[in-house]
């Protein structure tokens, strides 16, 4: 059963040092505000799980929150590298980051297996690539009917899933629409979940291409307008492509990065202050 609370309370209560956390959102609806709150609260040794680590994990890694990363594609889409991720892998800065690397299809299969309470999932994948040599959880099994070789990957069962959605009702039932990626699977595969939403409404009107997560499968719902920025929430905001480009020089340099995090994230009390700090207006609603 979900609780509607502040993001600060949700992170304090539900995310602990050493937890595995899956913060999902495929370009759209990335829960950046929650990432900042984790940095603010100084979590350590997190096992970060995400198909596309993106700027959100670049920040968590550079801020020293993570000791392990499970992922399938780590770049700043359309811009270039994730320099904090690279610096951790290449130079162990701020400390070493153990990586567990999959393909997109494999990660999606792993989340789906977790959501379905299966110990593993199957796909046609990975064969002939270098991944099985370096990632332990990729095995071949035989189809019991045809004898064909099929790839098995272990289910993902993160301690916490964190996603962003357009809205929730007052009971905490959440609705998201547009590209909803692997978020349903991430939430349903996790032990606990935090959902940040643009808006809390009296009633959820039906929308095309929407995913609804009933309040009783969620742990915490937090009202955080612009909580996906620089990612976006269809119907509420557009992607801040300029921010993604501006991130590149910030992330490139350890000191510039740390100064940015100190000023805008550690130096602000919450997402509202963060938005003011970077000069971002808060939208008026859908």
């Amino acid at each position, binding site marked *: 059963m979900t609780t509607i609370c502040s993001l600060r309370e949700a992170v304090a209560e539900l995310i602990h040092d050493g937890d595995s956390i899956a913060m999902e959102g495929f370009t759209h609806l990335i829960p950046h505000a929650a990432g900042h709150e984790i940095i603010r609260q100084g979590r350590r040794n997190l096992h970060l799980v995400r198909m596309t680590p993106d700027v959100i994990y670049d920040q968590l890694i550079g801020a020293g929150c993570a000791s392990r990363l499970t992922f*399938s594609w780590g770049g700043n889409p359309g811009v270039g590298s994730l320099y904090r991720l690279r610096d951790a892998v290449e130079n162990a800065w701020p400390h070493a980051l153990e990586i567990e690397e999959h393909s997109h299809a494999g990660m999606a299969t792993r989340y789906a297996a977790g959501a379905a309470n299966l110990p593993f999932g199957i796909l046609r994948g990975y064969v002939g690539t270098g991944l099985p040599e370096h990632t332990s959880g990729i095995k071949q099994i035989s189809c019991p009917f045809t004898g064909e070789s099929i790839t098995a990957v272990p289910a993902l069962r993160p301690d916490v899933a964190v996603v962003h959605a357009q809205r929730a009702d007052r009971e905490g039932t959440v609705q998201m629409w547009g590209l909803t*990626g692997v978020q349903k699977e991430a939430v349903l595969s996790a032990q606990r979940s935090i959902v940040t939403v643009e808006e809390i409404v009296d009633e959820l009107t039906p929308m095309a291409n929407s995913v609804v997560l009933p309040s009783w499968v969620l742990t915490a719902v937090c009202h955080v307008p612009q909580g996906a920025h620089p990612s976006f929430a*269809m119907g509420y905001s557009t992607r801040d492509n300029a921010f993604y480009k501006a991130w590149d020089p910030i992330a490139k340099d350890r000191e510039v990065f740390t100064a940015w995090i100190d000023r805008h994230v550690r130096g602000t009390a919450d997402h509202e202050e963060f938005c003011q700090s970077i000069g971002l207006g808060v939208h008026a609603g859908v």
Partner: protein
Amino acid sequence: MSDAAYTTDELMIVNAARQLGSLAASGHPVCFVGIGLPSTAANLARHLYRPSPVLVYESGCIGSKPTRLPLSIGDGELAETADAVVSVPEIFAYWLQAGRVDVGFLGGAQLDKYANINSTVIGEYEHPLTRLPGAGGAPEIAASAGTVMVIMRQSKRAFVERCDFRSSVGYGDGPGDRERFGLRGGGPKWVITDLGVLEPDPTSCELCMVALHPGVTPEQAISATGWPLRFADALHTTDMPTTLELETLRELQAA
């Protein structure tokens, strides 16, 4: 039209779009596209050829018809103009893996002569010189798409004898490897570069130069390739980008 009238990006995009156009003749080719040159090429082909290619994005969009070029794979426009929007697990399982994609697009930091691609690390995996983004959707695109089109700039650094890491499989170590790996798709059929077009030799599976762009010499191609490059007997020159192609592309990019 002089060389300077178009960029090498435009040249690659136009040539990739033409390949899709030649596939369009036998029905709407279903393209699994990433952002960047592939998306631009597929959208250009959508404007130039009938039946037009169907665009599938790994973010879950099926049949997107963007009026402007998407900036990211999760661009709102892609969802709004799609016939269907599905989950990421579904797009990989029911659509790509199921064999419903005719053409997949790939690129990377390294390509070897058997069209294997590296987008993971330069150097050793455990102690990389450069950590690249990783495999993403590539392993299964390379495995399951009907055919694969690679778009990459040709250079000695990128076109290597052997990839430092194999993120996606072309023809493995040569003939028979795809079958041995149980890969259902046909593998890479075209590599579109800034110098010309390579295709796998039907017997040896080795990538050979089948066409050079206008003004490019075989020597340029050889010196931009890290393996002893072979040329097709019937080496031809690609057609100069036409005014229609370039104008359509530029209108798309300006929209």
